């Protein structure tokens, strides 16, 4: 509604102006310039049908510029042009009628106070296995895709950039909002006995200090750069080749006199992103309990707070088998399995379960 008022006002204002640089008003949606209105009185002598052939919007640049692809519509004394993609912030455009320049307009840069921030890097511990597989970057705003190789670097002992440590994957792995990116350390080098692994070894070396550095030149979708650079320091510990074992997790249930969380301690850090999806608490009726999961410090614990108060009884913690640790070992199988060693069992369960009791609080 606000934009409509603005639009009407802009149209009114435009009508009162008589010459050259007036008239064109920009349509905004979600901070994107999705179209323009050109008052029809500027092009009065043409029939509506021929307008889209005669009227063009072009980039204001030297050299011949093609007409921008988009759609023209007639509405209330104005011609609306919507390009296939929104107009770009910081660029100038021109409206042409046949070979005569009618008007020009500029799309303002985004407000610097809307600059994106890097909120978190996962895994969060400062000791990580040397066969670490994934790193997640979490931003406050949708970021520009396809650019991570330019802006993310890994430094060894604060000095040398480690080349080729991240897999150059196109398309990059973003969530639908483009606020979370998964980076893979080159899996061909982590997998034992593949040629890259045999020739170059794992991407990270044992007992070495590393720094993950994210440059502040990384722009978001509006072209605004990160407010500041980000550094995460960590040291590597020996490789983790074992699947997480839920039978060794510690479950600490609360008493049944409220909705205090049940605490689960894994004894090792697990994959942040998978933790948010793969844990479920099931009641005696076999139904999943509504409530909220919180991932604890260093992704070594998780805490479930039910939406309603606990009732005394038996509950089940159901863990989907796709849950992984930091080295890509899931509950069914390790990241790579040595076939000559028969001692490592492989299962194909879709989930694992642990049960626990919630008891009435003891009365004093």
């Amino acid at each position, binding site marked *: 509604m606000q934009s409509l008022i603005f639009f009407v006002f802009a149209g009114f204002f435009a009508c009162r102006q008589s010459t050259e640089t007036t008239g064109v008003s920009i349509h905004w949606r979600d901070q994107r310039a999705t179209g323009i209105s050109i008052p029809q009185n500027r092009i009065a002598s043409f029939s509506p049908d021929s307008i889209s052939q005669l009227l063009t*919007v072009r*980039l204001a640049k030297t050299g011949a*510029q*093609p007409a*921008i*692809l*988009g759609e023209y519509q007639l509405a209330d004394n104005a011609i609306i042009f919507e390009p*296939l*993609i*929104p107009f*770009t912030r910081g*660029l100038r455009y021109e409206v042409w009628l046949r070979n005569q320049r009618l008007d020009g307009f500029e799309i303002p840069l985004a407000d610097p106070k809307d600059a994106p921030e890097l909120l978190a890097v996962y895994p969060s511990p400062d000791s990580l296995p040397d066969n670490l597989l*994934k790193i997640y970057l979490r931003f406050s705003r949708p970021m*520009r*895709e*396809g650019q991570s190789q330019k802006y993310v670097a890994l430094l060894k002992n604060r000095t040398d950039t480690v080349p080729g440590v991240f*897999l*150059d*994957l*196109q*398309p*990059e*792995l*973003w*969530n*639908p*909002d483009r*606020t*979370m*990116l*998964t980076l*893979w350390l*080159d*899996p*061909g*080098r982590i*997998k034992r*006995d*593949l*040629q*890259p692994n045999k*020739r170059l070894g794992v991407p990270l070396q044992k007992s070495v200090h590393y720094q993950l550095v994210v440059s502040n030149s990384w*722009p978001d*979708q*509006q*072209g605004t750069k990160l407010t500041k650079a980000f550094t995460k320091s960590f040291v590597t510990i020996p490789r983790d080749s074992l699947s997480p074992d839920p039978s060794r997790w510690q479950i600490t249930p609360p008493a049944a006199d409220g909705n205090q969380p049940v605490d689960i301690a894994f004894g090792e850090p697990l994959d942040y*992103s*998978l933790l*948010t*999806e793969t844990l479920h608490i099931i009641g005696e009726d076999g139904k999943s309990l509504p409530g909220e999961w*919180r991932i604890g410090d260093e992704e070594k614990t998780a805490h479930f707070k039910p939406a309603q108060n606990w009732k005394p009884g038996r509950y089940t913690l159901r863990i989907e088998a*796709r849950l*992984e640790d930091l080295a890509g070992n899931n509950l069914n*199988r390790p*990241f*790579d*399995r*040595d*076939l*000559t060693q028969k001692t490592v069992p492989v299962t194909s369960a879709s989930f694992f379960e642990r049960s626990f009791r919630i008891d009435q609080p003891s009365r004093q």
Partner: protein
Amino acid sequence: MKKMYFLLAIGFAGIVLLATTTRTKKPYGLTVGTPEIKSINALTFSPNGILFVGDAKSGSIFAIDTKDAEVTGQAAPVEIKNVDQKIAALLGTEVQNITIQDIAVNPVSKKTYIAVQHSDGTPVLLRVEGDKIMPVSTKNVEFSSLALNNLPSADAKDRRGESIRVSAISDMGFADGRVLVSGLSGQEFNSTFRSIPFPFTDKQDQASLEIYHAAHGKYETLSPIKTFTTAEIKGKKYLVASYTCTPLVLFPMDELKAGNHVKGRTVAEMGSGNSPLDIVTMKKGDDSFLVMANSSRPVFKVKYKNIEVYQGALTTPVEESFATAGVQFVSLPVTNVIQLDKLDDTRMVMLQRRSNGNLDLWTSSDRYL
């Protein structure tokens, strides 16, 4: 539940609307409308020119009749220099704000389709017409769509209420009346591969497979498929897949059934620090070839005959050549090819970053085979 009623109401309204607007039944179960495409990760065509759009953002595959069905026998070679700059100007922006996501050649009209993504995520579909680049409208077209199953429900959200599910469609193909889709997840490190019958049906009888490979017969591992093609080797049909850890692996097509855990045969490794980008199967005379574009290697060419005679399945490392192993392959004198599709049996359309930095769309001649 309310949401359910709402959806039903919309569905019903849709049916009524469609019933009034589409009187004739379209082939392949397509109906007229505007598909809500949120992203274009991958493009492919059926042999009779139906375009398939892989949309990871909405977790769907769209089948679209582009009406671009004029049979072209001898295809004219495609040649557009600085194609990214030309597309950027047509879209009214600068080259750093767009990415070419995929190219695909319509096998009927032999026209090249280009999927472009703006930096804010807006997808654009374009088509090359001679030396011109034209938009392909997806408004009021004949289409059908299929939601990829096994995607987590929308409530898989974090505490800020945002979906953190990270996924992409890494490649898409069409063989024997089925759409083949390989997916990448940013979470689990495995391979999802779907085989979906076309025309799409109401019931989701797509096969979702977990397929893994055994390196040198010693280590067995899951990994995501980056790109694939299909080929016939000794009269049997195979899926030829390249993984993110760059082995080239064969899977018999008849084993790719729902519920099966399929183990592939590794026939070659393609070296380190590399990500396979595109694979096509080409033919010249009696020989057929696998041609593969790579992120940091030249374009590879492998004779399928060599794969036929190669029985090793990498049980023991083969003599090393350029840090690769397995079936012998030839490096073509073409580097930095980002996208690849076949124009006809012997010629390929390539999107290549030239040594002078230009991004050109051009057509290879049959001497590359």
